[in-house]
């Protein structure tokens, strides 16, 4: 088993990104075949056409059935949306920026360009976690039975949508059946008894799941993997999550207790199956696994599966999916110990999230207690509840760079502001105006996508959609909870602190003169701005502006929600590598940042400005009312040098103190600058080095030079 697992891992890590045209060809064929069908039926029949004709690959990873393309890391094209390389993917991997050039046959490109057939983007909205409890414990046949229960509903629109769901679910079961037959043939054809056993196990499982409830751990994992990959083949791209697998599979924890090594091996192979089939190869970095946490009674939910998932991630350090651990005061000690050892060893996983801040935030956004306690992470670090809400529905169109909003506001009131608080008020007003506009865009986008590009299979696996006979973007229980993405918050705080110091406290210059100096690159002014108090040093002179800013944004968003008859927005501080992209789009700003330079890479200190150490940084962040101002979660990176400062007891002390006193999320990177430099020079020797960049995990050797250099700088600063 170890040897087979080693080969599967080598096949993945050794694979260069390529492009698989299977799906693109099949979708294009189907679009012609079903051109006259209403969108839900066209999408379902297209999905079926893909699943019945896709190449099956049981060789790359013989442990599990499920592949979205013909080879590991071959990109899955989704021409019905578009065929482009995302800006973040291009930034993180320069070599992939033109990956699709000349690889897609002209007839496919031309077909989708004509008549505006593509819906835009490069895939569905993602940021979704299906109802995995339903997938594992009831199976797709249960959805078919529930759909059949609505045969007397005469509404034609709902009828069409439910018919589409039926076609889609039956297609996934048929796809599993194809794997069962292929695995039977493969078992008979091989002389290797271990491999034959693998194939036989897959064949047996695929005859049963995901149509019916899983009977054992292996079938549970197989069901999840097939359905997860089916969501990709239906057209979802980035940021699809398998939710809380230790909870969903808890009924099989006895198997893990009796054969823990086998379970860890299976889970490792399962993770490789997800990693090998992400839709844009190494560019996809936002599939997630969440474990641990408490339930609504406060009881710890850890079980043998929790530890097995941690150990599998430790043993098989894939960069995607990323592992998140939900912390709470009663977290299982063995789980917590293992997590701390992994972080101390520089694994960059798990990322830690505090139930005690996240759940109250979700409750404020209108979720009921049971649902709020079942949250998971989707995407970089966004929140969702499996099968009940979809973060993409929350966020489309409501993207903010706090620094850009502040920059606009400060220039608008430069002639009239008498204090920093006046600027904050202008910030709030600008934020509210932009939020109103973003909300209108979001509603238009979601409505257009739900009508034109529905996802009947994903919808059948989410709550409320079968009953409503409608798409998940409209029918999930919390589809009216909208979210806001923010970035650049730390820079905005530094800008306000510098203005306060320079303009309003010392009166060295007027606000217009200050802005003119910033724009002109006045070296004397920039030196003073550099010396001004900075966020992340537990310095009230800077930190108070974070409090003012957070409260002002919250006030503005509450007003927008109330005016539109909506529950409170969620706010998510998310960066991935957008801190680079955002920075490129804005000129010099009040914090002294040069035009085009990146904004902060987390809610922590801007690079190079934390001089007081990690406790001061965490203290600054603790001044934020996380549940109130970031009910969608913030993104906090803490970098420590390898060695004594990152020993497990130290990480435990930092993490527990931070979380007990109101910290919401903590992403610990333990970096050794020497090893990073060595990996940059000799990538072949450091393939297993996984790092946390800003909002993503990645194998260091696969990052662009820009990202590698940034990490080396972070490591050097942490060790200074």
């Amino acid at each position, binding site marked *: 088993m170890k040897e087979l697992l080693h080969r599967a891992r080598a096949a993945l890590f050794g694979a260069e990104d390529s492009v698989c045209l299977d799906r693109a060809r099949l979708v294009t064929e189907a679009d012609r075949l079903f051109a006259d069908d209403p969108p839900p039926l066209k999408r379902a029949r297209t999905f079926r056409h893909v699943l019945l004709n896709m190449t099956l690959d049981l060789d790359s990873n013989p442990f599990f059935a499920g592949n979205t393309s013909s080879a590991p890391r071959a990109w899955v094209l989704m021409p019905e949306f578009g065929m482009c390389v995302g800006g973040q993917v291009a930034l993180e991997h320069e070599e992939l920026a033109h990956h699709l050039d000349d690889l897609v046959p002209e007839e496919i490109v031309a077909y989708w360009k004509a008549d505006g057939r593509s819906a835009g983007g490069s895939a569905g909205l993602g940021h979704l976690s299906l109802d995995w409890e339903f997938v594992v414990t009831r199976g797709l046949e249960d959805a078919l039975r529930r759909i059949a229960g609505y045969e007397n509903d005469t509404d034609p629109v709902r009828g069409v949508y439910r018919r589409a769901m039926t076609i889609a679910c039956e297609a996934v079961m048929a796809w599993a059946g194809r794997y069962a037959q292929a695995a039977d043939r493969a078992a008979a054809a091989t002389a290797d008894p271990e491999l034959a056993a693998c194939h036989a196990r897959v064949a047996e499982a695929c005859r049963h799941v995901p149509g019916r409830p899983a009977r054992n751990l292996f079938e549970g994992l197989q069901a999840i993997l097939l359905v997860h990959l089916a969501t990709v083949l239906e057209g979802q791209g980035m940021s699809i999550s398998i939710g809380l697998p230790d909870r969903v599979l808890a009924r099989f924890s006895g198997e893990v207790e009796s054969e823990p090594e086998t379970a860890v091996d299976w889970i490792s192979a399962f993770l490789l199956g997800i990693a090998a089939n992400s839709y844009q190869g190494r560019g996809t970095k936002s599939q997630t696994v969440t474990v641990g946490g408490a339930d609504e009674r406060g009881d710890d939910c850890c079980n043998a599966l929790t530890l097995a998932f941690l150990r599998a991630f430790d043993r098989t350090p894939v960069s995607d999916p990323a592992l998140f651990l939900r912390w709470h005061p009663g977290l299982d000690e063995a789980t917590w110990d293992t997590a701390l050892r992994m972080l101390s060893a520089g694994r960059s996983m798990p990322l830690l999230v505090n139930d005690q801040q996240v759940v109250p935030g979700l409750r404020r956004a209108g979720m009921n207690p049971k649902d709020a306690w079942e949250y998971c992470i989707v995407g970089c670090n966004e929140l969702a509840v499996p099968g009940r809400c979809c973060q993409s529905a929350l966020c489309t169109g409501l993207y903010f760079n706090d620094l850009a909003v502040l920059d606009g506001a400060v220039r608008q009131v430069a002639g009239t502001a008498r204090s920093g608080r006046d600027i904050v008020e202008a910030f709030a007003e600008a934020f509210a105006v932009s939020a109103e506009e973003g909300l209108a865009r979001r509603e238009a986008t979601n409505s257009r996508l739900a009508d034109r590009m529905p996802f009947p299979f994903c919808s059948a696996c989410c709550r409320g959609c079968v009953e409503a006979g409608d798409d998940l973007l409209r029918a999930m229980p919390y589809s009216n909870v909208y979210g806001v993405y923010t970035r650049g918050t730390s820079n905005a705080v530094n800008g306000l602190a510098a203005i306060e110091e320079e303009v309003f406290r010392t009166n060295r210059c007027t606000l217009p003169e200050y802005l003119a100096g910033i724009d002109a690159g006045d070296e004397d002014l920039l030196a003073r701005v550099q010396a001004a108090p900075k966020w992340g040093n537990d310095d009230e002179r800077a930190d108070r502006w974070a409090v003012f800013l957070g409260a002002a944004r919250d006030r503005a968003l509450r007003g927008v929600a109330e005016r539109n008859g909506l529950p409170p927005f969620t706010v998510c501080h998310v960066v991935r590598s957008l801190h680079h992209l955002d920075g490129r789009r804005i000129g010099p700003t009040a914090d002294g940042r040069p035009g085009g330079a990146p904004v902060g890479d987390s809610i922590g200190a801007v690079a190079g400005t934390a001089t007081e*150490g990690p406790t*001061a940084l965490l203290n600054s962040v603790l001044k934020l009312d996380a549940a109130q101002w970031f009910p969608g979660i913030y993104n906090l990176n803490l970098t420590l040098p390898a060695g*004594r400062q990152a020993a497990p*007891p130290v990480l435990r*002390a930092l993490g527990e*103190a931070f979380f*007990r006193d109101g910290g919401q999320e903590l992403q610990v990177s333990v970096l050794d600058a020497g090893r990073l430099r060595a990996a940059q020079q000799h990538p072949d020797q450091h393939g297993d080095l996984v790092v946390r960049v800003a909002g993503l995990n990645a194998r260091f050797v696969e990052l662009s030079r820009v990202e590698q250099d940034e990490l080396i700088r972070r490591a050097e600063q942490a060790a200074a």
Partner: protein
Amino acid sequence: MPFTETQLNVGRIQRFCLHDGPGIRSTVFLQGCGLHCWWCQNADLRPSDAAAARQVDAAALAEELLRDERYWRSSGGGVTLSGGEPLCQPEGCAALLAALGCRNVHRCVDTAGDAPAEALEMLVPHTDLWLFDLKTGSAAAYHDAAGGDLGRVLENLGSLVASAGVDLRLRIPLVAGFNTDDASLHALGECIRKSGGGRLVELVPGHDIRAEGRRSVAVTREECARAQEALLPYASAVEVCW
């Protein structure tokens, strides 16, 4: 600036210290020291009138330090007074330690012990752990290198050891070309033995300070291991604080 008995002359404060006592600590580096050890890594703290220093009232300083209390509690850490030489400011240190004691903060004093016995006595009731530096077992070498009085150091060490309830660790800075030879280590061992022996000894290897225009005090890992082995017979344990 007026300087009262409850004020301290503070060179700098370092948070998240892991080498100056148990757990996560905040270390207060006090300004001013009567010694002039040529290997000193904090030479900027020697003069008592440095421009960068600030005078802070003990109560206010305690409040400032307490911002990190949550990490001390979660790690078993606290506050360490170092320097410079804390015993040069006994009144202020006692006031600060007393204020921290009221909040049940673990308090540590890192001292060379070369001060009047009265200064030491003022801090004893308010100190949970002493980090007592022992640089050499040779009075002449000590006087030449640091300008200090080893007899007074050893007397103070003896009285601390004799005091009921005092927790103490010996710290030995390992300095290349000063105390790493066999004879020096043996003499240090004898001092440990005379002070009661059987206690934890921490070796603090010197670092490369040639960049500051002085000769290097850096020791190799092999030299540390040899010192560790040589001193182990005199101590309950010998740890190297890299």
